[in-house]
Structures are given as C-alpha cells and as structure tokens.
C-alpha cells in the first residue's frame, strides 16, 4: 500500500490560511484583554466583594470550568438568539471565549491576590490609601506578576480552543483548513498543515506574552 501526500494542493491556498491565522489571532487578542479584565474583576469580587457578589462570582467560575467550551459556544450562538439576542458568528465566538477565559483568569488572579503579604496591606493602610488605591497600586501589580505565567498558559489554551469556533462558521484557522479540504479533498494534509500552524502560533504566543508582560503590563522591576 502506498500513501501519497499532496501538500502543494494545500499550500497553494496560503491566502486562506493566512486569513484564518489573522482571525484566530484577532479573536485571541480581544478575548485575552477582556478575559483578563474580567478575571481581575472576578478575583476582586471573590476575595473582597460583598457576600452576594462572592456567591455570584463563585457560581460563574464553577459553571464555566465544569462545562465544555463547545457547549458554551453553542449556547451563545444558537441559544441566545432564541432569547431575542441575534449574534454574528464572530461576536458569539468572542463572547464565548471571553466568558470562558474570564472564569479561569478569575481563579488564577485570585491565587495571586491571596498571596499578598499582610504587611503590604498594613503599609498601604498606614499611608492612608483608599481601598481602591490599595487594590490597584499595592495588591494587583505584584499579584499579576506572580501569576503571569499561568495566565499566559490559559490564554494559549483559549487560543487553541478557538479552533472550535469554526463550527459556527467563524472564519478562523480551522475553518480555513476545513474549507481547503472541501475544495481539494486533501483532508489529512489540510489538517496537518493547520495543526502545525497552531503549534507555531502557540509557541510564538507564549514567548511573546512572557516577554511583553513584565515589560508593558506591570513594569520591568522584578
């Protein structure tokens, strides 16, 4: 038996793949920013918010972390329109990704917040900082710095998870691969090329975020 591969048939479709990569990265970028923002808010709510808010944030985290992303995506895309909210595939994808990342980021950031030494809080209090000032200037930056590697991992996981968004015809990378294989019937080649590109994206994204975080997000001081 001979297996013949025809990678040329896939690679000649590079504009499609490139477009897919662009969409994947765009979805990831938006979700990363909004998701981490939700994570910070959620972590604050869970550790310092009023009792009812803690419960709500806790329920949100557990609900999202114990259900598959694809079901969350289908719920947003197919379910919400039935409740009167009409969404484009791209919007639905971003919402699902943000909600998903937000829950994981909440847990990650919370772990960082809880590692704050008591003396720091006492020092902030003795400087007469308000609660908000204490949170944003004293507690949050070192907490983020501490958990940044975990956040980066989670962002990479969400980027890889976005492959599922092709199922609701968001035109990201896996959608491009699917489109290519439906044109030339080279399914294995199309998917292996896409998988390779995902691997490269994951490695590059991890490296870029690990590099950029300490420089731009919370200052380069160690």
């Amino acid at each position: 038996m001979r297996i013949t591969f025809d990678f040329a048939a896939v690679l000649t479709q590079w504009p499609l793949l490139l477009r897919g990569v662009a969409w994947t990265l765009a979805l990831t970028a938006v979700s990363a920013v909004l998701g981490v923002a939700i994570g910070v808010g959620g972590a604050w709510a869970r550790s310092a918010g009023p009792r009812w808010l803690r419960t709500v944030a806790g329920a949100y985290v557990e609900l999202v972390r114990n259900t598959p992303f694809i079901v969350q995506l289908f719920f947003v895309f197919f379910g919400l329109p039935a409740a009167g909210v009409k969404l484009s595939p791209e919007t639905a994808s971003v919402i699902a990704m943000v909600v998903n990342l937000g829950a994981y980021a909440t847990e990650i950031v919370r772990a960082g917040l809880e590692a704050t030494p008591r003396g720091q809080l006492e020092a902030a209090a003795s400087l007469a900082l308000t609660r908000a000032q204490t949170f944003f200037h004293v507690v949050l930056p070192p907490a983020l710095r501490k958990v940044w590697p975990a956040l980066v991992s989670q962002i990479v996981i969400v980027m890889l998870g976005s492959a599922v968004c092709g199922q609701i015809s968001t035109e990201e990378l896996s959608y491009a691969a699917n489109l290519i294989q439906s044109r030339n019937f080279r399914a294995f080649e199309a998917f292996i090329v896409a998988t390779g590109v995902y691997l490269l994206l994951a490695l590059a994204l991890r490296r870029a975020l690990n590099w950029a975080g300490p420089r731009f997000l919370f200052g380069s001081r160690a």
Partner: protein
Amino acid sequence: MIDFSLWDVVRNLLLAARWTVALSLIAFIGGGVVGLALLVLRLTGSRWAEAFVGAYVQVFQGTPLLMQLFLAYFGIALFGINVSPWTAASVALTLYTSAFLAEIWRGCVAAVPKGQWEAARSLALDFHEQLRHVILPQALRIAVPPTVGFLVQVVKGTALASVIGFVELTKAGTMITNATFRPFLVYGCVALLYFALCYPVSLYARGLEKKLNVAHR
C-alpha cells in the same frame, strides 16, 4: 408537529450522556496506560527518550484537540482502514490524555526528593526496583488530586468528538435542537448535565488536595 416535553429532552440527553461517560473512561484508562509508559521512558534518563517525550507532550498540548480528532479521523483512513467515529475519538483522546498525564506525573515524580533515588540506589536496587518500591509509591500520593482534577478536562474534551459525528451528549443536543427548535433550553440542559458530571469530580479533587496537603505538612 410532535410536541416535546422537557422530560423528553432530558431523557434523551441522559441516554446520550452514557456515551460521554464511556468515551471518558476509555480515554482516561488508555491515556493512563500510555502516559505511564511515557513517564517511565522519560525517567530512564536517556537523552533520546527525554527529547521524544518532551516533543510528544509539546505537540499534544500545543495543538487544538479538535485538530487531533480530525487528524485521527482522516489519518487512520489513509491506511485504508474504515474508521468509525468511535475509533477515531478513542485514539485521539487517548493520545491527548496520555500527553497531559505524562506531564502531570513527571511533576509528581520530580517532587520526590532526590535523596530518595540516591538512597534506593545505595541499597543496590536496580532502576525498576527503585521506581516500583521507592519512587512511585511516594509520587502516587502527590499525583492523585491533579489526576482526578484532570478527569474533568477529559470529560469536557469528549464534547469535541461530536464534531466528527460521535453521538454523545453534545451531538445529541444538536440533534434534539434540530428536532425541537428550542436551542436555549436544550443547550442549557446539555451544559447542566456536563456540570452534573464534572462538578462532583472537581469537588472531590479539591477535597483530596486539601486532605493530602494537610497530611504532608
């Protein structure tokens, strides 16, 4: 038009959830066996084995599970074997699970103090005996909570098998939606059923973590 009651929807989803559970068990057990083999291979310390297992883990953790499923589906077919979604999903999820478990367990073995290896070696135990009698029993204790916790990831991962036509909970949800035109209700129920499967496991893993940690201090 036939009317579907809430019970009809839930009953059919529950029936489909059996296959989610079955596939999860296959992936977990298969992944455990392959993962253990990878771990032992890596612990032999040969540079070649280290590089191979490292690359294996990197590939499966750095690519989407969905792509792995597609590749298993179309890849096995290349050999002229007729693949059912069952086979493809089992193969892909087993490999995926093995990569994560190998990595989790490697961390647990690394957490066993180096002195234990040295002590075992000074007792003239060979590599096999060192692993079996000294290292693995200690690593196992540390490994239980994260391993149980990872089971949740596996259960959620099986949802992707719906994309290659495996009829489990998610796929059943899609089919029922097409019949009932009530996506909000159906996908809501699907999500709740996954939650019912996963949340107890999450809680159990967290409980184990607390228990074993306290004992450890």
